[in-house]
């Protein structure tokens, strides 16, 4: 009794003062390099563009009103990011499924580690490697040699999709793998014993139980893809426009800082709303899972 009392007290009680101070450095860093920059961003977004570029003080919502007329990069990015995230999911799911449920023993760890290896190599180099492969001297030359004629691969939307799937595949495979790995195999056997075919088992057992993993995979891929800059620049030849490219242009080339700030602010707010929604849904999913396992 005395024990449990003390353990419970130990969680919340005394020593609060000193140990709590450990949060100060990180807290100061967040204030100085997260809150302050975001505040400046918002302040700039209600400002005006000075004649020679950059920022002039002001208090106007013009930039946000401009957003509605120059909304193409935003909608474009939303559509492309959603599409590519979906392709990524389609490619990743069977891999995660095979790794989690078909591979046994130590092979599993080796293969999972192998999925991660490309992820740990430089993003830029991975994209550059595809530039070589898709460029005029890569696959198109082989295609021409085989007799497919002139194929343009680099600087197409296809190349952008390929680059995105290639670069973000590990982020999709891993969470799905983790959720499938935890799946109770007796469910699969029960489903088979009850006469469900492989497709029925996947639809009725595997997919619902993998839902939290699929959801985290989607969020993990969708957010960075929205802000993607390198892949569209290097593989899309600037033709496939993402929010990242639009922002880079606005800040580095046309120097329309207030409008860029408004776009960035909308972007951040959108992402935070998205993640909040994801957390709410995933919490419900986890609860649903708990309830169904209680039954």
């Amino acid at each position, binding site marked *: 009794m005395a024990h449990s009392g003390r353990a419970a007290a130990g969680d919340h009680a005394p020593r609060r003062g000193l140990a709590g101070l450990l949060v100060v450095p990180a807290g100061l860093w967040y204030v*100085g390099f997260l809150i302050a920059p975001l505040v400046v961003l918002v302040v700039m977004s209600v400002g005006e563009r000075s004649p020679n570029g950059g920022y002039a003080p002001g208090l106007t919502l013009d930039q946000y009103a401009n957003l509605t007329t120059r909304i193409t990069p935003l909608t474009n990015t939303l559509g492309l990011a959603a599409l590519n995230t979906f392709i990524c999911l389609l490619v990743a799911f069977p891999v995660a499924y095979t790794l989690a449920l078909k591979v046994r023993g130590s092979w599993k760890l080796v293969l999972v580690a192998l999925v991660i290896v490309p992820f740990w190599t430089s993003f*830029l180099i991975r994209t550059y490697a595809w530039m070589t492969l898709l460029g005029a001297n890569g696959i198109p030359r082989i295609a021409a040699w085989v007799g497919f004629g002139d194929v343009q691969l680099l600087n197409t939307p296809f190349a952008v999709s390929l680059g995105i799937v290639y670069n973000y595949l590990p982020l999709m495979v891993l969470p799905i793998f983790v959720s499938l790995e935890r799946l109770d195999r007796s469910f699969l056997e029960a489903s088979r014993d009850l006469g469900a075919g492989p497709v029925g088992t996947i639809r009725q057992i595997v997919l619902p139980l993998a839902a939290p993993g699929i959801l985290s995979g989607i969020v993990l891929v969708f957010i960075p893809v929205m802000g993607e800059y390198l892949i569209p620049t290097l593989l899309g030849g600037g033709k496939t426009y993402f929010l990242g490219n639009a922002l880079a242009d606005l800040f580095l080339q046309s120097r329309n800082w207030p409008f860029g700030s408004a776009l960035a602010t909308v972007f951040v707010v959108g992402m935070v709303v998205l993640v909040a929604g994801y957390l709410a849904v995933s919490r419900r999913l986890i609860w649903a899972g708990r309830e169904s396992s209680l039954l």
Partner: protein
Amino acid sequence: MTGVSQVRDGESRSGEAQRGGRDHDLRSAHRAARLERLGDRASWIYTALVFAFLFLPILIVVIYSFNAGRHVTELKGFSTQWYVSAWSDRFLMKALRNSLTIATVTAVLATVMGSASALAMARLRPRLRSLVELLTYVAIIVPGIVIGIATLIFLVTAFDWLNPWLVYLAGGDAPHLGLGTASVIAAHTLFTTAIVTVLVRTRLQGMDRTLVEASEDLYATPWRTFVQVTFPQLLPAIVAGTLLAFTFSFDDFIVAFFTSGQDQTVPIYLFASIRRGVSPQVNAIATVLLAVTILAMLLAGLAYRRGQRRSGSATDTGGASVSAVVATEAAEPTQAPS
């Protein structure tokens, strides 16, 4: 007799029906088994293809780094000339020094501040804790490009305001504040600190409290409990966080692109040289980076495994290479801010 025959009759009749059913069952079971074998084979082939897809580009880069020819099409034989020319490239070496400095300082700062923040969080008042949690998650959620841009405009604004003051206070030889390695470190440390915090906090929450209680019951001071019980259990998460922070910082392009000013980092150098026109030198740099990364992963994996064997604890990953742990933990935004 008749009774028996009747019974037999009945048996055989029902047996026939059963046999028919069983045949059907057998056939469908057979079909299902065949289908499953087929599905298995298909999923294996598919997975093998995806692995080929993942490694083909990397393989190409490595092969061409040793190619004597200038162009991708001419495989002319083995040569290390691109390594030599990379090594003697003054700008590249400067970029490498910058990158290593930034990544090292970032990793140290993020590890110390992130771990400290994770440890402190349990002892904060609930409202303050939620605030810190919120900030931590926002730091992770905000896309890299926005962090880069926001840091850029913030620092430029701040420097515009500070520099005249410095001149006013210190005269003509006042230091002129500007973008550079330090501003990249500031931005990198922001989101890597948040990542370390999440990793360590997750580990802390999953920790067995009985050991801490046992230690307290044996009259260990809080400090000794921390050093002898808590810290060893947190170490894998801290090491994983350090590695992750270093890699993220070293690999980052987009944040550094906006905040580095005149100082180049390796990714910025690579980006510039790719845009200028592909030089095989890039392949050589890529191969060296790749080799270093894989070596570091193997060493970290070995260390992690040894540490686990010594502590005798079997985690759910069963002593996987540390990278697998890192990536899965990072890939799973585990606890929702409560």
